[in-house]
């Protein structure tokens, strides 16, 4: 199977997981270790969108304090929440 993205793109996503909140660093690091390299192109695009959220908004979504305005994020958020 063709990789969904390049080494550099993955590096960029990993860097965009560097956040101002430690909680997010931890959640995103775990997610990356488990999933980043096997996400398909659609999931990668959604992940990129999620990473564009501000830190507090993203943490609220990840912790389930707010519901995503866009249902497409549901599956990814579930993966992010899995302990």
């Amino acid at each position: 199977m063709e990789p969904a993205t390049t080494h550099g793109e993955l590096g960029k996503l990993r860097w965009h997981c560097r956040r101002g909140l430690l909680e997010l660093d931890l959640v995103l690091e775990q997610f990356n270790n488990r999933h980043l390299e096997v996400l398909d192109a659609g999931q990668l695009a959604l992940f990129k969108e999620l990473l564009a959220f501000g830190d507090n908004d993203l943490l609220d979504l990840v912790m389930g304090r707010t519901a995503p305005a866009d249902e497409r994020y549901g599956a990814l958020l579930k993966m992010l929440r899995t302990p």
Partner: protein
Amino acid sequence: MAIAKRQFDAVVVGAGGSGLRAALHLAEADLKVAVLSKVFPTRSYTVAAQGGVAASLGNDGEDNWHWHMFDTVKGSDYLGDQDAIEFMCRKANEAVYELEHFGMPFDRTPDGRIYQRPFGGQTRNYGEGPVKRSCAAADRTGHAMLHTLYQRNVRARTQFFVEWMALDLIRNQDGEVLGVVAMEMETSEVMIFQAKATLLATGGAGRIYSASTNAYINTGDGLGMAARAGVPLEDMEFWQFHPTGVAGAGVLITEGVRGEGGFLLNKDGERFMERYAPTVKDLASRDVVSRAMATEIKEGRGAGKDGEYILLKLDHLGAEVIDKRLPGIREIAMKFANVDCTKNPIPVVPTCHYQMGGVPTNIHGQVYAPDGADENIVRGLYAAGECSCVSVHGANRLGTNSLLDLLVFGKSAAEQVIRDIAVDQAFKDLPNDAADRPLARLARLYSATSGESVAEVGAEMRRTMQLHCGVFRFPDSLAEGVRKMLAVVERVKHTFIKDKSKVFNTARLEALELDNLVETAVSTMISAEARKESRGAHDRSDHPNRDDINWMQHTFWFKEGDRLQYKPVKLKPLTVESFQPKPRVY
């Protein structure tokens, strides 16, 4: 090798609260300003600040800057410089009103003024009782501050270089700083940012400890750059620990848990705070609780497989109270400690939270090296924010004073830059070796085919700091810590990465960050080993008391030869009478 060069009046390294405040003032003065940041500005660590920013507005009850000054001097355990503290407290109201004017969405009183709430250590009438001094924007003060300042900077045409990592300062033979060398992460392009003024605003370095509330980004790059350029680091032995970070994760559990009736237990199920603070027990101040916890762990009464943590019990409060009074705690405990806190205690440890020391500056943000009691200004170099040490926090920072520090000294440094540039308009010639040091660091990482693992050396550094230079410090352990850290310093010279790619090579970025973390760590260990007293956040078993006769001194660590030098604390404020050292009791 020829590398690209760009020229700016001022280069600000860092886009947190301090960097943005400084850059805004510079850009509004029509200077050509570049701001470099490893991450998008509004993702800087300042975003984590919730509690608020201190200012004696007196919007709810009487308050004044002199009371604020007293609290800050006392909070610093008398190590803070009183000229700087007076300066900051006097400027606080202006700093907050400016921010309000920029559009910061502060919480309001019913009649439209800025709402203020109390915060630990901030008192009325020289310690009489709590005062409402903290100005907040809900629980997102830092976030709101970053957004407000970023928008204003965009309007003022500050040029942002986002995802650029500054690598090293450029210093000429005369010791003047002429800019920085930085690398673009997307391309690995290295460029010289030549500047009449270079301002470090790179934030703290809390990642030197295994237990840290700090985000991964806090790697002390400004400290590393300064140290490599021959600039000393001041008071690095002083780090504030928060008692309740989740063991293994660092995530903060708010003090509110103990406020609502939660308490700490050792492995025997003993409520040990009854022994250390019989009256207030678990509600004693941060340093007292942290010290008690560290003692329990050290003496073998910690819980967990290796006796490495303390238990924070709150299940007796009942799920209803927990959900109502402590919103979010259940999810945090579940997510980061894997514990249902309505049934089981949360494993916690005292966790590194804030760096009081840093790059030495005067109240105008000018970096200096000590010369006896005098200060030799490093021309062209300025610093502000958590990476700097001015020193307003001394041996212990008060909550909400850090955001204030960013605003006041960010602006003050910018004012000095404007004055200095007005006098000296020309760019100085760059030395031929301007970029040699960073290029050599990069070349080594490109060419090395074997060596030390960045992850392993980093882990060894964090373990060493945690074990030998934590909350409670023991002489033999500190001496061993120095030996171990010097070994880590050697190992870090031989780090190796497999990945040689050029686009967002995160392995390389982490290797470069480790160079900076290690400078921070070794300076901390050596400064701590040498300070033979207990003051504020520095607590030694063999010297349990503050020693005002011998140690009213700031420590300065120089990388070259790991040399230490001392300089007396400035007890003389700018205009008022000095606050003389007294026992710090609350």
